[in-house]
């Protein structure tokens, strides 16, 4: 009851266009709902499936095999710093999958939870943010496979692996910005529901997932880094494979700037439109 008593003395004013000053505090207060929605998505994900959680292993593994054969064996693209092609592909595939599943799920999440949005109040940002948890769990499973692949090839990470959490956080942030933007816009214009998968499909080949970014000619590398995933994926490879896969620093900084910009844009778009969600959905 203590929480109830604490809230009871509060005065709430509802008015048109009133910026909700307590928004971030509210977001914290509703953390239980955040966890429970995330738990719901996780626990529902593999119900009534034949092989259940094994899907989380099979999908990234097969993608890795295809990319290794396609780019490494057939196209004979070089790996970075002599590391096995499969390891390099997998180290790129991890952040990409994390990014694309957050962007894909989060952007559709507000509309697919329309029954909640139109019937109860909560800070709407909980819904897209909740999908991050699901993506992170799949990511953790993929890390296990990566470890297996590395043991198989006898590749050992250096001290750089300690910085991996930083890059994971960066990948999440990179996805959250555009995802919030897309989630807000999809509430208004459902057309964008078809745009997101298309952009993701395109992005898989525009980002250095199946190949190393070192094959990009030097004079184009900075321009290429406008794609924020270039910096993130390079960072992943650097921390997993070690010094053999160096980070291109100007590009990395540019990527970070783009990420920050997208994050700001996504949050402001979402905050601006979320009060009208229930009317539009």
């Amino acid at each position, binding site marked *: *009851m203590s*929480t*109830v008593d604490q*809230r*009871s*003395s*509060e*005065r*709430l*004013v*509802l*008015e*048109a*266009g*009133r910026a909700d000053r307590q928004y971030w505090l509210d977001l914290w207060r509703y953390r*239980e*709902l955040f966890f*429970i*929605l995330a738990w*719901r998505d996780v*626990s*529902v994900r593999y*119900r*009534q499936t034949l092989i259940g959680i094994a899907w989380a292993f099979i999908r990234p593994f097969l993608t890795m095999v295809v990319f290794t054969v396609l780019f490494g064996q057939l196209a004979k693209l070089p790996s970075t710093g002599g590391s096995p092609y499969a390891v390099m592909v997998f180290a790129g595939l991890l952040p990409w999958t994390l990014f694309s599943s957050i962007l894909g799920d989060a952007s559709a999440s507000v509309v697919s939870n329309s*029954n*909640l*949005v*139109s*019937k*109860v*109040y*909560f800070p709407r940002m909980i819904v897209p943010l909740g999908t991050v948890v699901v993506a992170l769990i799949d990511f953790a499973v993929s890390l296990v496979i990566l470890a297996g692949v590395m043991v198989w090839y006898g590749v050992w990470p250096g001290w750089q692996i300690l910085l991996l959490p930083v890059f994971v956080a960066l990948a999440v942030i990179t996805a959250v910005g555009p995802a919030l933007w897309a989630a807000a816009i999809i509430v*208004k*214009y459902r057309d964008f529901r078809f745009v997101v998968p298309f952009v993701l499909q395109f992005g898989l080949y525009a980002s250095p997932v199946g190949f190393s970014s070192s094959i990009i000619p030097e004079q184009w590398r900075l321009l290429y880094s406008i794609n924020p995933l270039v910096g993130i994926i390079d960072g992943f490879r650097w921390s997993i494979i070690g010094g053999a896969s160096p980070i291109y620093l100007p590009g990395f900084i540019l990527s970070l700037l783009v990420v920050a910009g997208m994050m700001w844009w996504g949050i402001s778009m979402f905050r601006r439109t979320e*009060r*009208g969600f*229930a*009317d*539009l959905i």
Partner: protein
Amino acid sequence: MSDTVIRAEKLGKKFIIGHYDQRDTMFREAMMRRARNFFRKGAELFRGQPIIEGDSAEEFWALRDVDFEIKRGELVSIIGHNGAGKSTLLKILSRITEPTEGRIEITGRVTSLLEIGTGFHHELTGRENVFLNGAILGMTRAEVRRRFDEIVSFSGVEKFIDTPVKRYSMGMYCRLAFAVAAHLESEILVIDEVLAVGDAEFQAKCLNRMSEVASGGRTVLFVSHNFAAVRSLTRRAIVLRRGRLSFDGPVDAALSNYTAATTTSAQTRRDWGRGRNVTVVAADLVDQQGVPTERYEAGKPLRFHIVFDTNGMSGLALELVLRDEHNVAVAYYSTLVFGQAPLPTTPGRYECTVSLDALYLAAGSYSLDVKTGFPGIEEDHRVDGAVPFIVEICSPNNIPYSFRQDEGVGTLALSLTAPLEFAPVRADAPTGHG
């Protein structure tokens, strides 16, 4: 500290609604219109406005200039017709949508029940859904855990609590959902017609539970069409009519204001266009005294008063199509098909009262289409939804609850013409009537 927990001042909510101007008869027209609408939508996208389906947009105030105050511990009903603004008001109170103008001040934690079982997931078990639903309604995990046994025993689905709710019957599902809602702990409770679930016994249990909640010193706002529940639970009522506050005061006075309001609003003039030969000018549901009304009392003769103009053309019929709240046609009458009553052949304006047999229509909203024409050949004038009306309560044989359309078992309560008797059948006797 003031005793007022909710104060609304000049509250208003505007929506933009789209209209389709007419039905297209030509392919070319339809294509032109599509193209025009496509460009309009594109322009709206660039201006960042929501997409309006239709040919023209219109402002619509769902709520306007609504002022009221509610004190701590008060039990207030909000009544009004469909579309009077009740749901909009509840949505503003529960912060789901924000007002377009005016303000509202709330002191204390609000929980709203706009439906029961919000967020229930079919793949999850009953137990998991209790926690999920509790969190969605604003309970903490600790709160749910503490009251879990109470919730489950209230719902009466103990045996199936670890079964996915997709295997539940509708009744079990609703009972579990209501049970969670009934155990909410908050100072202000906003409830929208959630009593309409389950069987009579469970409804009585719900009503009891609600009055318990009410007597616990909490503030309750209650929306319902069930007059009996409104009377027994609350002392004060707010009547909304077309988005405006029409009455605020003691419950009995409010209910008579609400009933009186329906009779006057039914007489407003309308413009339904014209037919080629016979034009429907006015159509109303009327009560036994012939006074227009918007409420049909189930079990009384169903009477419609209709005024039409004719140019004297012969062979036309007047047809009535009754539709339920899903706009499904459920009943039909024609002056020609079901009786040889040709329309008058002298030009002029005529009125008539179509008196139909008493029906036990399920509680809910209905509408009547009025048409003229040559049955099965050509329509002359057609007014869709000419007479909207509602049935408040349907309780044949004075059963203690209301049979409702949204139970999904039909729109008509059947009644017996002879007492139902169950006679034992002996094993050696032949079965059947023979």
